[in-house]
């Protein structure tokens, strides 16, 4: 008897703590975030925010527009979309999603948590042709952006077996970071089967825990860039005009790129491009090829998600710094072929808001560094974003084609682009359905 009491004294508290922890993590908690916290989160570009749900959901209900992209989003110069929106009291604020190495597959997964909130709303996508390498999403980078919570959302949200679901599951299975029951679930989906009862039960509980984790901890470790945004905003003219913005952009760019002949930001040049590296990079990108890539199909996953949400999307295709591509030997012709494929994929499915900046890499002060938009490039972005947001919110309908998941499309060398002046006609859509 005495021994039993001692055993209880030793292990009782542990058991109680374990039960309590389980209860806490499985309870449906409510939490709202302050406006300041959301504003900080929208501009912080941290992985926690990218992977989570709740912050984004609250933000999208409150006038934030997601800006999906990658490393260019962190170029916070005075003309950055976040700074412009703040300075001119726009009725929207950008919610920056993505960072170095985030490509379509990471974005598709990340979008799983906010399907409801973006229904019939707007979004901006900066789609970099650099994503479209042969193998697409880099698995190491994917590991940084992989969110088990969103993977649960993806799996539990599947209602029937479709080409999209199978393709997505197959792609996720190629990422080593996808593990455990989620991996088992993906395997079933990839084979066209349903989740087992146990998997469903397990994943639902896992999702509940992860959702709570998201609620409790997503405000931790936010990167505070509000001060920087306010500081940059002071450099802008008080009344908005494209000409005045362009002037500030040129002036700022001139100040910040005077250390080199490439028009690259001094700090970037100093830190990332030492002499040895520069010598190594010369002519190193001659064989780069963005025209044949699985990324085209991963990108289709994003488009499919937008279509499902009836989201009105503006696509921006950035250029490459021309002086830089001349130096590294990256072929502009190849680049344009990749752009033509992206544009065809968009236009043929009804995504008509496309701003193609890809030929403007030679314009002075358009780029912040090698491949990232900056200063005057951001001004050009704003000229597209401003009228786009001014449109009224109407649910958009798209014509999604499974053809874009095919090897054939991934490997197609180029496609005559269907530009805005030459919209898709019904015939070309018909021909697609036949394939």
């Amino acid at each position, binding site marked *: 008897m005495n*021994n039993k009491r*001692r*055993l209880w*004294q*030793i*292990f009782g508290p*542990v058991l109680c703590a374990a039960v309590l922890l389980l209860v806490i993590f499985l309870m449906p908690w409510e939490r709202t975030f302050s406006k300041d916290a959301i504003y900080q989160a929208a501009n912080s570009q941290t992985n926690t925010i990218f992977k989570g749900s709740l912050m984004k959901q609250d933000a999208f209900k409150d006038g934030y527009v997601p800006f999906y992209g990658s490393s260019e989003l962190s170029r916070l110069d005075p003309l950055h979309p976040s700074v412009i929106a703040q300075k001119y009291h726009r009725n929207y604020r950008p919610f920056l999603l993505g960072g170095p190495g985030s490509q379509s597959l990471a974005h598709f997964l990340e979008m799983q948590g906010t399907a409801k909130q973006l229904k019939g709303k707007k979004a901006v996508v900066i789609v970099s042709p650099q994503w479209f390498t042969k193998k697409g999403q880099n698995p190491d980078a994917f590991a940084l952006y992989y969110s088990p919570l969103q993977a649960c959302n993806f799996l539990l949200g599947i209602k029937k077996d479709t080409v999209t679901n199978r393709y997505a599951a197959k792609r996720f299975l190629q990422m*080593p970071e996808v*593990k455990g029951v989620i991996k088992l679930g993906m395997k079933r989906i990839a084979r066209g089967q349903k989740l087992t009862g146990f998997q469903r039960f397990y994943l639902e509980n896992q999702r509940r825990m992860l959702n709570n984790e998201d609620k409790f901890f997503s405000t931790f*470790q936010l990167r505070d860039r509000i001060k920087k945004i306010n500081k940059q905003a002071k450099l802008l003219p008080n009344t908005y005009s494209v000409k005045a913005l362009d002037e500030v952009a040129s002036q700022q760019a001139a100040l910040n790129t005077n250390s080199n002949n490439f028009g690259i930001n001094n700090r970037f040049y100093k830190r990332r491009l030492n002499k040895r590296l520069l010598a190594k990079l010369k002519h190193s990108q001659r064989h780069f090829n963005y025209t044949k890539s699985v990324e085209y199909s991963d990108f289709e996953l994003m488009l499919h998600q937008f279509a499902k949400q009836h989201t009105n999307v503006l696509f921006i295709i950035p250029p490459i710094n021309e002086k830089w591509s001349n130096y590294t030997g990256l072929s502009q012709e190849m680049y344009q072929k990749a752009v033509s494929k992206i544009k065809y994929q968009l236009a043929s499915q009804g995504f008509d808001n496309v701003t193609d900046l890809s030929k403007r890499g030679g314009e002075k002060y358009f780029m912040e560094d090698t491949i990232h938009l900056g200063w005057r490039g951001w001004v050009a972005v704003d000229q597209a974003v401003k009228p786009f947001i001014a449109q009224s919110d109407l649910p958009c309908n798209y014509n999604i084609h499974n053809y874009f998941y095919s090897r054939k499309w991934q490997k197609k060398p180029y496609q005559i682009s269907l530009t805005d002046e030459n919209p898709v006609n019904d015939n070309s859509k018909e021909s697609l359905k036949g394939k």
Partner: protein
Amino acid sequence: MNTNFINLQPYSNPHYFVYLMIGLIPIIIGLYWGHRLKIYELVFSLIFLFLIFDGEKWQQGVSLIIYILFQLLVTYGYLYYRRRKNSPNRTWVFYLAVILAIVPLVLVKVQTAFPQAKIPGVLAFLGISYLTFKTVQVVMEVRDGAIKELNLGTYLRFLLFFPTISSGPIDRYRRFAKECDTVPKRDQYLNDLELATRYLFQGFLYKFVLGWFFGTYWLPRITRAAMITGTAVGGLKLSWWVVAYMYCYSMYLFFDFAGYSLFAVSISYFMGIHTPMNFNKPFISQNIKEFWNRWHMTLSFWFRDYIYMRFTFFAMKKKLFKNPVRLSQAAYLLLFLVMGFWHGLTWYYIVYGLFHAFAIIINDCWLRFKKKHKDKLPSNKYTKWLAIFVTFNVVCFSFLIFSGFLSQLWFGWQ
């Protein structure tokens, strides 16, 4: 790359503890009812060892097996030599046995320091540094005749005892052998369970909460700030950030390692083995000597017993030094140099060793001075706190050297 293998590094994540505790339940119930389930214990240990060295780490596993076979050969060879009737017990044979036992570790350390110079067949594996302490210790005690018999099974269990295999604490063979086949009395075992549970949770607090804050949360920020400010000021690149780094790293080192050690001790206790503690509130030490009696205790006691005491014993017997003070100073220098080299062949580990050698030599001088002038020197609450403060800062500074951060700051490599 085969990603289907489950590979579990000891005490690295919550899953590990869940699997571990489930595996321990039969052992705990057995010991509680007075039985040691030897076969189950063996299988359980082998599974967890396997999980450390499977998948991508299989080469390390092979290395470990070869290493163990080699060490068995050395130990049993020497034991055979010593147990022959009228064994001549020659010194050179003893030296040879010790050297052979250390050779693999030396090769691994050289290989780690000079990765370009590929030494064929040499591959470091998790725990080699700590295994070497165990085998060298046994060779030395065989020499002294303290170990006369070495049961192969017990010896293997001692070497491969999985709770402590990766980084100690360093147990002693004779102590381990006494316990590993017996069952503690129920009362005693209940005490063990109580301590085991406490240590486990203290370990969680240390390693996953405090260690995380210092090591994962603050340290990278401080590092970045120190590097940027350092580049800006030039010269020796010193700034207050380096001081912040010093304290933060020291705290990280303590909580991370003490947390790990608590896990190892805790799991041992669950298995009815009293693996010795590694830390005893090191930062309240009033001098460096006391510090080494409280910090990484199993390591410093090992060095004390097998290097310092043996060296002084030998030197005194042979009357190598006239002055015992000089002798102890030489012994300290030897001890800490060996410790420095054991950590690795880089300048900052060796400087760390020298730093501590000089610190403890100065400390000894001071203690002698204090003893002589006992009546004139004040000794009260304030001097005690002053002593703790000075010792703490000296220790933290030594950890700054140890961290290799200065190397990164000055030479760009670590």
